[in-house]
């Protein structure tokens, strides 16, 4: 089967333009993302948020009066200090570094190394606006690099200084505005970091700056100073299987990457393609991935892939979240059990039901959090928040179509029946009390707050170096030299090990440091 590009990040700009398929909602989102107003774009994983942000950025790049910068905070968990503001400063420094990078790319700033070609060098001490910005970045970077000491916040530049520097850059270079696109923003499941992100998002508001960010449905900690409705345009990226153009839209999207033989197969077996497209529940990445996994485009292969993906893989992905975000593991596992063992079996045996379910709005907070995590993976989708059932208000969800039909022995055949009878008015209701809820009702206090995350990180750092993937000899050498815990290793350089441990040269030092770093990264990777 054709080899598809599944992630926007794997595409070069030229490919992005040629692969783009836009429906009315996509166009509306692009318009919002290229407007001067800040915009938040909500969508589950793989729905195409990055793709639309990238198209918007490319559109803006065509204008000489704007600069647009893409930023990703995907290793943010590495910053962990007692100072809440340090994450803020870390994000700010990253943002400004990316701006400096773009200024150089656009020819608006010159690299310091260029002085090798210029006899009258332009050194970094020269008072230029770009150098001013560089020194601001350095101050912020130093503030979070000093992990053990308290940093005097008063010595750091104010956000107003940053905005002033950006204003000067715009004026100097005849730029109307600088756009920041925060991809993967605030995806780390740490409420305090989410709040800090939205503080920065709001603080950067200026006549010369527009911030846009992609967020997941589970992101809810906006902080006290940021109100999504008032402080930005809030767009939701949702491709509804009930839309008239849904199937045609996805067909066009697949055709952009399909080879001639696959195109012919899809044309010949339209119904089969429809089953696969409906199964993905509006998620292009999943559709492309499932088609890519088919050895041949035929019914038996489609049934096999649907069963494998929507019964096994999609759930594995959800469960893996729990391994990544330890503090949420219980909630993630409970959500999976609730859906797999209670909701879906009830939904498919209820003859009035289809792919929708309703849940009372007064359910415990832990249940809401579990369901939010399921929307993050995209296994369920929140449709609305105030629908009545038997007099009570509640939230309606759609279960991913593929997860329902995958349970049948012949998913493709079942799909033709299900799609016809499916009706949003027919939903299975779950009240505010249910025996399943009791399993996590005492968890309310354990939804991870930063304090606890830090504590768990502390315990990780206090672990013996014996847990690392090293040979016994290497471990013995480390212990004999006074490196007892992972904390003792973290922050050290290889040369420190070479100096301090007899018989350890560059190779062994690298192995030892890699083991310590990978253990830590594995644990806290965001």
């Amino acid at each position, binding site marked *: 089967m054709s080899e598809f590009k599944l992630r926007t*990040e794997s595409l070069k700009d030229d490919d992005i333009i040629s692969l783009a398929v836009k429906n009315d909602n996509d166009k509306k989102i692009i318009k919002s993302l290229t407007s001067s107003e800040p915009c938040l774009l909500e969508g589950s994983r793989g729905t195409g948020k990055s793709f639309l942000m990238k198209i918007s950025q490319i559109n803006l790049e065509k204008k000489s009066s704007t600069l647009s910068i893409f930023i990703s905070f995907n290793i943010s968990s590495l910053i962990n200090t007692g100072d809440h503001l340090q994450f803020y400063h870390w994000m700010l420094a990253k943002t400004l570094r990316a701006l400096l990078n773009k200024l150089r790319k656009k*020819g608006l700033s*010159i*690299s310091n190394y*260029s002085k090798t070609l210029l006899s009258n060098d332009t050194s970094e001490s020269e008072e230029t606006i770009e150098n001013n910005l560089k020194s601001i970045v350095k101050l912020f970077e130093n503030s979070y690099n000093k992990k053990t000491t308290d940093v005097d916040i008063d010595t750091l530049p104010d956000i107003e200084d940053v905005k002033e520097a950006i204003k000067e850059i715009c004026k100097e270079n005849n730029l109307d505005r600088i756009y920041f696109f925060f991809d993967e923003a605030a995806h780390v499941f740490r409420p305090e970091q989410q709040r800090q992100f939205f503080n920065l998002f709001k603080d950067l508001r200026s006549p010369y700056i527009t911030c846009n960010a992609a967020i997941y449905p589970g992101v809810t900690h906006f902080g006290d100073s940021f109100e999504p409705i008032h402080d930005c345009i809030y767009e939701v990226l949702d491709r509804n299987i009930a839309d008239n153009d849904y199937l045609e839209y996805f067909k066009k999207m697949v055709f952009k990457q399909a080879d001639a033989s696959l195109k012919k197969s899809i044309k010949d077996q339209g119904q089969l393609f429809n089953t696969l497209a409906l199964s993905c529940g509006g998620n292009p990445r999943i559709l492309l991935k499932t088609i890519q996994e088919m050895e041949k485009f035929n019914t038996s292969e489609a049934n096999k892939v649907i069963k494998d993906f929507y019964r096994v893989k999609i759930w594995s*992905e959800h469960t893996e979240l729990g391994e990544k975000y330890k503090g949420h593991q219980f909630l993630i596992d409970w959500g999976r059990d609730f859906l797999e063992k209670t909701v879906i079996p009830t939904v498919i045996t209820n003859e009035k039901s289809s792919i929708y379910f309703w849940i009372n709005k007064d359910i415990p907070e832990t249940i809401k959090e579990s369901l939010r995590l399921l929307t993050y993976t995209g296994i369920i989708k929140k449709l609305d928040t105030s629908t009545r059932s038997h007099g009570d208000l509640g939230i309606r969800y759609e279960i991913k179509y593929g997860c329902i039909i995958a349970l049948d022995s012949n998913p493709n055949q079942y799909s033709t029946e299900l799609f016809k009878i499916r009706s949003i008015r027919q939903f299975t209701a779950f009240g505010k009390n249910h025996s399943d809820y009791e399993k996590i009702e005492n968890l309310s206090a354990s939804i991870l707050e930063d304090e606890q995350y830090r504590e768990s990180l502390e315990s990780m750092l206090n672990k013996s170096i014996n847990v690392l993937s090293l040979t016994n000899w290497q471990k013995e050498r480390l212990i004999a030299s006074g490196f007892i815990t992972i904390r003792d290793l973290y922050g050290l350089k290889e040369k420190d090990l070479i100096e301090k441990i007899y018989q350890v040269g560059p190779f062994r030092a690298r192995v030892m440091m890699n083991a310590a770093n990978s253990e830590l990264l594995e644990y806290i990777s965001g």
Partner: protein
Amino acid sequence: MLNDQKNMNIKEYLNQLNEKSQEIYNETITDFDDLGKTHHLASFIAEFSENIFDENEKKMILTVAIQMESATLNMIYGMYRQAYSTLRLAFELGLGAIHFSVHKLEHNEWIKGQNDIKWSKLIDEDNGVISERFSNAFFPELKDLMKDYNKKSKDVYRKLSEFVHGNNGTWTKSGLTIQYNEELKKDYYNSYKIVSEILIFVMCCRYLKTFNQKQKEAISVFMLEEMQHISSIREFLGGVKDI
């Protein structure tokens, strides 16, 4: 035209050449985006060199970056043949540095002037710096891309070499007089982009896995903008994973 002017002295002659070059300079200097990009790419190669442990390799890679800037300087003044030639030199020197990083004996001989960089060795499909063998040793996840980059390298090298060797077609293209040439200029930018991408790719293949977290952080802003389409490099630098 210049030959028609009989009574010109050397100073007047060179002044006229200078004026001609200045005209081309003024025409080319408006390419803000393209010129910014070329400087950006060379600057990154220079920055990357700062993270290389071996001093001689570091020095060679920095020279590559400077040569790339010199190539663009030639291009801006309309000396297209010299620009292509310098770009080829930078390309060879860059791949040569990587080759020497795994052949220390040859490197030291080269430093002493007793050995040359041989293109055929660099580009050897089985044992060169853009081979599966090479990626297997330093960055196995890039293995599947080596063939493609090897071909790309040969193609761009051949193109640049046509100007160095003075192949007949290139005289028509670059002309015998100093003259602004839009087509050659665009072609130069394109070749420059390809050369930079290959060099950065090969440098990543050779060195990236030796970098510590701080070094990775230092290059990641550039890398995650320019090279993120290569998923194994993106993932190694902390970017999102392919599913």
